[in-house]
Each structure stands twice: as structure tokens, then as C-alpha cells.
């Protein structure tokens, strides 16, 4: 537990917040979008587990805009 307390949370928290917002936005978009490139459930898993990279990848290649 002492190691957890040593982490400078005040400095690290904004990174986590940004990551979290990106994930939420990606999930909202995934819910609303008609169809994605590739199965939706793969994108769901990618966004949920791969942190910021999954969300960015979803926005760049996942959205099918037709």
C-alpha cells in the first residue's frame, strides 16, 4: 500500500482522466454508430482493454462513414 501512496496522484490523475474520457467517447460512438469496419464486439474489447491506443484506432479506422 505504501507504494501506492508514493505515486504522485495529483500529477498522474489528468492522464488517467484523459484516457477515461477518450474511452467513454469511443464507447458512446460505438453504441450509436450504424456499422463499423469489422465486427463491433472486437472494437468493444479493443477499446476496453487497450487504453488510449484502442480508442484512437477506433476513431481512425473503426468508424464507417457512409
Amino acid at each position, binding site marked *: 500500500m505504501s507504494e501506492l501512496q508514493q505515486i504522485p496522484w495529483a*500529477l*498522474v490523475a*489528468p*492522464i488517467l482522466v*484523459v*484516457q477515461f*474520457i*477518450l474511452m467513454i*467517447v*469511443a464507447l458512446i*460512438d460505438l453504441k450509436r454508430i450504424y456499422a463499423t469496419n469489422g465486427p463491433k464486439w472486437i472494437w468493444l474489447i479493443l477499446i476496453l482493454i487497450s487504453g*488510449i491506443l484502442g*480508442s*484512437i484506432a477506433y*476513431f*481512425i*479506422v473503426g*468508424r464507417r*462513414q*457512409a
Partner: protein
Amino acid sequence: MTQFSVLLKKEFLESWRSFKFLWIPLVFIFLGVTEPLTNYYIEDILAAVGNMPEGFEMLFPELTAADILLSTTGQYQLIGLLVLISAFIGSVSRERHNGTATLLYVRPISAAVIFMSKWMMASIVSIVSAVLGYLASMYYTVILFGSVAVDDFVKMLLTYCVWLVLVMAITIAMSAAFQTGVAAAIAIILIPVGLFVDSAIGGFWTWTPWKLVNHGLSFVTDTIIMADFQMALLFTVIAIISFSGLGILATKRNWRLTKV
């Protein structure tokens, strides 16, 4: 002018609804925040996860605020530009592909207005992203490393914005001229790869548009050679004008080729 504002509004709605206005600034802020943090805690990070042998010691250079700005810019020039290019490379070609463009081309709208509205919106999104990202980065840098002069920082930021306008001019022009895949390849070769090539072999000339950002950075890092900066700025503006001309011509050609 009304045509332009209507089309600009359409572009704004598009980037708003596709969340571009949200996620691209967030990516830039993320990159900008992680850079000073990882540089500051690199020793702790290595100690915790680096599997360093017992008694291993490493000397780290004393980093200044300017060094952090330099490495943040490095991130933006690689990851940031790739994100921006891939977000906007489809803006004309996709509309042509799915038929939205036809709806525009049957109306008496000039090609210049179509191109300009897209280019301007893309530039606004990238500039907002870069400014927010740099501000976030600077905030952390001031806390962890110390400060730089505000006016130098603003000058550097303005230079970066000019560069982003060029990047977006190339991106939208390529999008108008080619299909999405080809356009992306050309834009990536011209911009991020061009940066590599220029830094590898470009020691002999100082005025290419690719060097503009480096000249801008020397506002904060060390003394700037004003003549070089102005030449690079001049050539960047020339490049912006020629690429937007190219983009307008390509949009005109699309218009002619469209069958209704």
C-alpha cells in the same frame, strides 16, 4: 461569403458529430502531458520496471523546460501529424466515394469555396488541438522543470500553427486529388517521412518548410537565426498557397468528372 459560412458550418457539424473536435485535442493533451511526466520520472520508472541489475547507475542529463518542449514537439511531429492526417485525409475523397459530393457539385458552389471550407475547418481543429496540447505540456513542464519566457513560447506556438496550416493544406489537397488510400500514402510520405528525410540529408539548406518547426523551437531553446526563420516561413507560405491552388484545381476536376 454566405456560401462559405454555410459550408463551414457543415464542416463544423461533421467534425463535431464524428467527435473529431473532442478526440484529437484529447490525444494531443495526452501526448503533451505524458512527455514531461515520463522525462521527470524516468529514473523511477526504470527502477520499477526496467529489470536493471543490482547497483546499476545511470547518469541522466539535467533537462530544462526547453528540452521538454523539444521532445513534446517530437511526439507531435510524428504521432500527432499521423493522427491529424488520418483523421482528415478522407474529407473530400470519402464524400466523393459515398455520394455526398454529388449533392454539392450539382449546386452553383465554386470549387474554391468547397476546398477552403474543408481546409479551414481542418486547420481549426488541428490548431485547437496543438494549442491545448502545448498548454497542457507547458503546465506540467513549469511544475516539474521550470519555465520559459512567455513571448518566446507564444512565438513558437504561432510558428507551429503556420506549419499545421500547411500540413492540412497538403492533406485536403491530396484528399481532393486522389482516392483515400493513395492520398494517405502521399500525404504521409510528404509530411512525417519528409521530416525524416529532410533531417537526414537536409544539412545543406536551412529554408525548407520542414525546418520551420525547428526554427520556431529555437525561439525557446537558443538564439534564433532570424534570416533562416524568415526564409523558411516564406517558403512555407509559398507551399501553402501552391498546395491550396492544387487542391482547388483538383476539386474543380472532380466537379467536371461527376456524373449526375
